[in-house]
């Protein structure tokens, strides 16, 4: 006896219809959006690759120094980048860096407001949490199929896939950070006649910034972990090299790509963490 009604057919058919409908009726809108994203990416990518490697290494070292105030950290970051160049992966690394930068900026643009909304409305948070869970667990290929249909193969769907996967921790930590802000401080701000916007920008965001920075750090790490999948749908960069090693059964090439990703990850992670720790400083004095 068959106890299962057939719902697979209807779900699949409805989804396909929806995607077809979007492609046909809103194709232009998607293309316009896709173009904006693409232009941003190309702009950053061209900038990064136009810089001579020594200048880039100096800049990253300076950023590391500014974020951590530790000279050793700057030397380490410079050495890591130099090593990537020595591996012959400079161009790919810059392409990947561009995708990461654009994805993370996009995540911040979308994630911060959503996190703020979630913190201020319990209803909204209740609805949002399962969506975030879904975004982190559903295999990327499932949404890559419609994304590729809507945006075509290439960099834009790669960025979108990265954003979908990397966004949730930023929203969660923004929400958490804002809700953790001492209620009496917010109350005091209200008592003196602050508007919602003044409370948000003057109290809630600054006080939750260390937690939000943690979210940005995690989002960046997750974005890096998506580079191989992103290159499967046509993004250029380090992921491509790993993919190449896989396709040609060439462990050496694969390893070179892998090492490059790890170095990028370590450098970015240390820089953002050090910055987050510095934001924490006068907070710990208060406890």
């Amino acid at each position, binding site marked *: 006896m068959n106890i299962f009604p057939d719902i697979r057919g209807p779900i699949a058919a409805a989804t396909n219809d929806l995607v077809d409908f979007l492609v046909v009726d809103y194709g232009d809108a998607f293309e316009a959006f896709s173009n904006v994203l693409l232009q941003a990416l190309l702009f950053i990518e061209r900038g990064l690759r136009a810089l001579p490697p020594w200048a880039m290494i100096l800049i990253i070292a300076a950023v590391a120094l500014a974020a951590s105030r530790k000279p050793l950290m700057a030397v380490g970051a410079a050495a890591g980048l130099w090593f990537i160049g020595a591996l012959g992966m400079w161009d790919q690394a810059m392409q990947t860096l561009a995708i990461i930068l654009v994805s993370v900026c996009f995540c911040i643009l979308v994630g911060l407001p959503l996190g703020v909304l979630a913190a201020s409305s319990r209803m909204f948070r209740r609805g949002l949490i399962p969506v975030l869970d879904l975004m982190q667990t559903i295999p990327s290929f499932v949404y890559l199929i419609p994304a590729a249909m809507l945006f075509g193969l290439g960099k834009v769907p790669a960025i979108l896939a990265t954003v979908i996967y990397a966004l949730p921790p930023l929203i969660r930590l923004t929400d958490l950070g804002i809700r953790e802000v001492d209620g009496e401080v917010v109350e005091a701000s209200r008592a003196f*006649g602050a508007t919602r916007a003044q409370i948000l920008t003057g109290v809630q965001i600054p006080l939750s910034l260390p937690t939000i920075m943690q979210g940005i750090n995690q989002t960046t790490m997750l974005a890096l972990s998506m580079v191989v999948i992103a290159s499967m749908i046509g993004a250029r960069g380090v992921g491509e090299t790993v993919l190449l090693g896989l396709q040609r059964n060439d462990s050496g090439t694969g390893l070179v790509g892998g090492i490059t990703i790890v170095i990028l990850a370590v450098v970015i992670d240390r820089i953002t963490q050090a910055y987050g720790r510095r934001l924490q400083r006068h907070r710990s004095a208060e406890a």
Partner: protein
Amino acid sequence: MPLIELDHVVTIFGNDPEGALARVRAGADKKALLAETNHVLGLDDITLSIEAGEIFVVMGLSGSGKSTLVRHINRLIDSTAGAVRIDGTDIMALSKKELIALRRRRIAMVFQRFGLLPHRRVLENAAYGLEIRGLPRAEREARAQEWLERVGLKGYEDRYPGELSGGMQQRVGLARALAADTDIILMDEAFSALDPLIRSELQDELVALQRATGKTIVFITHDLDEALRLADRIAILKDGRLVQVGTPTDILLSPADPYVEAFVRDVNRARALTVDSLMQPPALRLSEESIGEALAAMRRTKSDVAYVVDDGRFAGVVTKEGLERAAVTQGTGEAVAAVAEAHPAVTADTAIESAIPTLLESPHPLPVVTEDGELAGIVRPESVSEVLVSERTQADLVETATAGQEVGRRADIDSAA
């Protein structure tokens, strides 16, 4: 019209305050409401009014609803039922914009747990109210600086709140509220974290400031001595209910119920009460009379001493013997004011404690005068002991006395055996 009015305000915390309201209307108290509906009764039908220019103190045990009550005045908390009016306007009916204007211009607040911005320096914290209002930086920081100096924090402007002690943070909160220059200030245990020295210094400064500026201050405290020192009137809360509202003397001399009585039992009454609470009318007051008329009046009222008022002001005392002597030397037609002897006097607002030495040295019941020197009444030494000892302690004394007699009697029996 009172400046601030609470009109049958009921506030219930929980998921369904409206639903729980019916129970409260039916007479459920805080404990019953919590047991039956799991809702907390914050304020239970509070009606009170606060006049412009008064220091109104709210007292009560922990959890009695003091903080909840003051948060209604600037609408940090919305009541479940009833109205809150400022200058006759129901603030529950204000638009968002009007409410913000009210908070910026009219009401400042000092918080029990300070509520300072940890990421901003002390000076920026003190200037916060003015910043929100949109004052230019130079001006707001100059004003904040001035107040920081007045609360004794000069030199700490560039520190972060986390680097300051609790008492110092509390003073930053105080400077922030005062710098906002509003006509109403809400102070939620504003002095609780201060050491006794600074505390009494700031209490005096607060009273002086209030007298000078006419601000209206709503002050919460646990400490009865503080309440008595500051208050024009005191409200006592218990489980969200208003038990008594009155002047310090009312509260001390006629506590409304055992709860209030327990509150006031240990207070130093000699310091808290002023001589006007002991005052009686003088047995005989003389002004235009001649010596002869005065002697006649004294015989009629059987008094040995009379208080002389000249041109509306207290001029001294005359005794029967003194007058009889004067009648012989100067004749009975002389005006009594001419022969009055100087006598020590106290003003009506003197604390009993500081009047006691004068009272003990005074040969006759001590005259009490108003600020303008008019004779307001007299104080007899015996009324001091009556008022200083509360009824409760008197009852205790009687009991111990009887017990003592018992023991004494038994001792007699023992020694006889």
